């Protein structure tokens, strides 16, 4: 069993990788690519040059200019529990601090030589002073890096302007790949008296932008080196378990920061996942408790009223899409225009904090429903919308496997022995028919997780479904990926659980 478990767990890894890669590729296929949401964010600013610099910063921060596969690899490296390279640190608030990243080189060094590389040396402080110093240096490095990346974009824009002013006959002589003689490139507008008007001015702007960029690079590089040295002095303890210092460590997955909310993705998932699991875990027993007895009854009285009626009713229910049931439930049962019996949205009443757990009568003699009943009251319609679809599938399966077993030899033997019919049904047939129902879990669970997206949306419940729809609308890549990762992991773990249960219930199954 243990070997089987380990093998299954290991096989889950490629599956999860496959699913996340698929989602990553889909998001990358989207118009505007992975950074579309970031670009939209930048678009809310009025000043166009500010927008460009903001975009440049975002691209730099999230590595959006790299090929998709590289970006995916980086994401995997963050999520993978085994980390290579310099160990990240963990601040007391639980924030992961990675080593300051290398700066990208200034572009077009063949035409605009960058300042010479330099090495900063300084001795960081120790103890609490180191923490303060590191924080300052880190903020400094981040700010200067941002400034530098923005100026690189400004330099490129100035260059593009210059080329546009020059017009076609001149730009043809320039080799954009960088093979041209730098001197020729620099002198171009000055050598030719016939150069278009404004070329000299545009050129001056390019040079000014280059100078600014180089200055910013020197500042950013210096700040980065200082921050790196302070980082190496370890102001905080290393995150996770360090196996070999700055080579291999083991850490919990880092899902990054959801830029639409500016909060760690894990925080959002930590509040959303239990809600979704709660709804699904309430729904499952209800499905089994209704469907299995109905299926058993239908198989005993095969062709009878109960069989035909339950088959027809469940097929009708099966044909009702969740969206339809949800809209009807919220419209006719919850809306005050009609019955208004149930709350329209949310998981708890707004006065949740003041409620007692169990219902009681308060000092004014008024009955208070309390937290538990309130939650049940709020959950009634969402759970109702989740359960009815599974009835048909499960009861049909129960009925079919019961009928299969009724025809089996051992049942005939039992009958011949004179075992009472009740005992045959319950301890022979039903017992053996329950096994396939465990595997049915495999089919129903992923579908139910999908269905809860719709239910959460209709009843405005703050679960994984609401989270993923929000993430999609805002094109929040980190949130989308982490959501998919969590949902597929939960779904795979559930499948594994079903297999283990199967092995426990059926002595014939031996996973070795």
């Amino acid at each position, binding site marked *: 069993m243990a070997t089987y478990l380990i093998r299954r767990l290991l096989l889950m890894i490629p599956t999860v990788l496959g699913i996340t890669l*698929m989602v990553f590729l889909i998001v990358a296929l989207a118009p505007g690519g992975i950074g579309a949401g970031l670009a939209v964010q930048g678009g809310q600013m009025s000043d166009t040059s500010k927008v460009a610099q903001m975009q440049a910063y975002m691209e730099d921060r999230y590595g959006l200019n790299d090929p998709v596969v590289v970006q995916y690899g980086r994401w995997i490296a963050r999520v993978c529990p085994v980390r290579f390279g310099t160990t990240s640190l963990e601040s007391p608030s639980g924030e992961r601090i990675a080593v300051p990243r290398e700066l990208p080189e200034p572009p077009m060094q063949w035409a605009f030589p960058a300042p010479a590389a330099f090495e900063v040396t300084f001795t960081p402080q120790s103890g609490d002073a180191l923490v303060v110093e590191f924080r300052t240096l880190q903020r400094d490095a981040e700010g200067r890096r941002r400034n530098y990346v923005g100026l690189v974009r400004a330099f490129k824009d100035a260059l593009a302007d210059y080329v546009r002013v020059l017009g076609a006959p001149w730009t043809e002589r320039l080799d954009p790949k960088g093979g041209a003689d730098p001197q020729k490139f620099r002198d171009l507008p000055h050598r030719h008296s016939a150069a278009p008007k404004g070329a000299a001015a545009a050129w001056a702007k390019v040079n000014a932008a280059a100078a600014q960029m180089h200055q910013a690079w020197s500042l950013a590089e210096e700040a980065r080196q200082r921050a790196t040295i302070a980082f190496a002095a370890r102001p905080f303890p290393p995150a996770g378990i360090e196996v070999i210092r700055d080579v291999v460590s083991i850490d919990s997955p880092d899902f990054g920061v959801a830029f639409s909310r500016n909060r760690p993705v894990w925080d959002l998932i930590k509040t959303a996942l239990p809600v979704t699991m709660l709804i699904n875990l309430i729904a499952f027993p209800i499905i089994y408790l209704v469907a299995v007895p109905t299926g058993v009854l239908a198989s005993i009285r095969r062709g009878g009223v109960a069989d035909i009626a339950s088959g027809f009713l469940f097929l009708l229910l099966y*044909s*009702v899409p969740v969206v*339809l049931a949800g809209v009807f439930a919220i*419209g006719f049962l919850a809306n005050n225009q009609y019955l208004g019996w149930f709350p329209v949205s949310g998981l708890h009443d707004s006065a949740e904090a003041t409620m007692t757990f169990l219902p009681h009568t308060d000092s004014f003699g008024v009955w208070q429903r309390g937290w538990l009943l309130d939650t049940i009251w709020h959950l009634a319609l969402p759970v109702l919308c989740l359960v009815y679809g599974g009835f048909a599938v499960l009861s049909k399966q129960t009925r079919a496997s019961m009928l299969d077993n009724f025809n089996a030899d051992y049942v005939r033997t039992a009958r011949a022995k004179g075992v009472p019919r009740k005992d045959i049904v319950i301890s022979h047939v039903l017992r053996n028919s329950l096994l396939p129902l465990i595997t049915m879990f495999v089919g129903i669970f992923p579908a139910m997780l*999908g269905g809860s997206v719709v239910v959460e949306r209709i009843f405005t419940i703050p679960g994984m479904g609401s989270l*993923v729809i929000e993430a999609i609308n805002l*094109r929040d890549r980190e949130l989308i990926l982490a959501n998919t990762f969590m949902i597929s992991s939960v779904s795979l773990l559930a499948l594994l659980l079903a297999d283990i249960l199967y092995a426990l219930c059926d002595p014939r199954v031996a996973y070795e």
Partner: protein
Amino acid sequence: MRGIGARAAKSFWADAWDRVRARPGAVFGIVWISIMGFFAVFAPLLANAHPILMEQLAADGSVEARSFPLISNLTPTDWLLMAGAIFGLPWVFFGPAALGRSLRIAVLAALLAQGGATIVLSQVFVWTSEGSSLPWLRAWARLDAGPWPLIALAGLLSAVVAVAVPIILSPRRRVLAVAVVAAASSALVWATGAPTIVNHEKILLDESAGRIRAVWTLIPWSPEYTRSDLVAQAPGTQVSEVLHLDGFRGTPFGARRTWLGTDALGGDVLAQLLWACRLSISIGLVSTGISVLIGVTIGALMGYFGGWVDLLLYRVVEIFMAVPTLFVLIVAAGVLPRNTYVMMAIIGIFSWTGAARFTRAEFLRIRQMDFVQAAQATGLPVRSVLMRHMLPNGVTPVLVDTSFAIAAAITIEATLSFLGLGPDGQASWGKMLSSATAATGTFVWWLAVFPGLAIFLSVLSYNLLGEAMRDAIDPKLRKAAH
């Protein structure tokens, strides 16, 4: 026929069809699907905001000019569907007996698919080449007489693919049929061109003032024609009841009714309901077609070759099975362009595992059978063994399941449209359903009940049909029933 009282044995499919027809549920399903199909094909003639006939009247009442706005605004798809329904269906039912009905159905489906492919391809070509970096390609896409080189290319491409499909066995006839369809569909796309922009408001005002005389369709509304002064009107509302201040009282427009009410944007619900049949049916059929194609191909490879091919491909199947499909579909539909074709493709791509597993199991079984061993022993190429011998004998369980797959695809389409991730600019039942619970908190019952009923009946029909087909074909169940 030999012997007295001897009867020719019915073919497998004819027998199955008779069994299906004997079930009232299946008959109900077929009837409703036919009704939906009728609306899907003839929606432009039934519900249209363009008048069929418009006559400009001079001051003395004589007719100055005549025009047919409805006809001139039909799209190539409309023409293709109507031609298929008006000429193709009678041919299928009453055509030459020598061909056999199943062959006629296959030929009609193939030719319609070829025509449809031409239309879609030419749209895609024009769309992509308009944004191309090549100046000559852009110029082609904007030719005054329609971008005929691109259209001709689309026609040629789909014709080449269609010629390779071995439905009509005689090569000369096959080439002829394919060439005729290619020429006709290309000419259709070229002739219809871009739709003209019609000022509905001006037509209505002119009609009220007696400057024109117009003949309208049965439901004189289009799904995309919305009036902000007719928002959320109850079913049966007469226009003049709402717009009593304007000069519409006593005019033909004022006498109009919105039979099933209007939606939150002021569009007619009945018109949208009819037009949405088209989206639902086409997404159901095309996405299931895609998923069956992928599933059967992969399943056949797994079942026939076995070994490491099976092992590797089955891992892929497992990945797709563990994916919470709706979840990934929501992500895909959310970030990809909101387009009917994209939606068909993604639904198809994420729902093929069932077909693959059925085909795999069936092929694993058939592979051991004598006729396959014989075919292999004769030295037939793998292609022939797979396509000619194994496929016709192994595809039945998949075909039985298609009906359920179509029902699932319709549900998914409704769900995605409900979440606001459906195709842009298309009437959709799911979209209407989502506007039933408005942001203001009021519940508009006619936006929930009518589209909801349509979705429910369609899904139920396909499920009933699938149930009947499964019972009719599944030998295990049939044996158990006796």
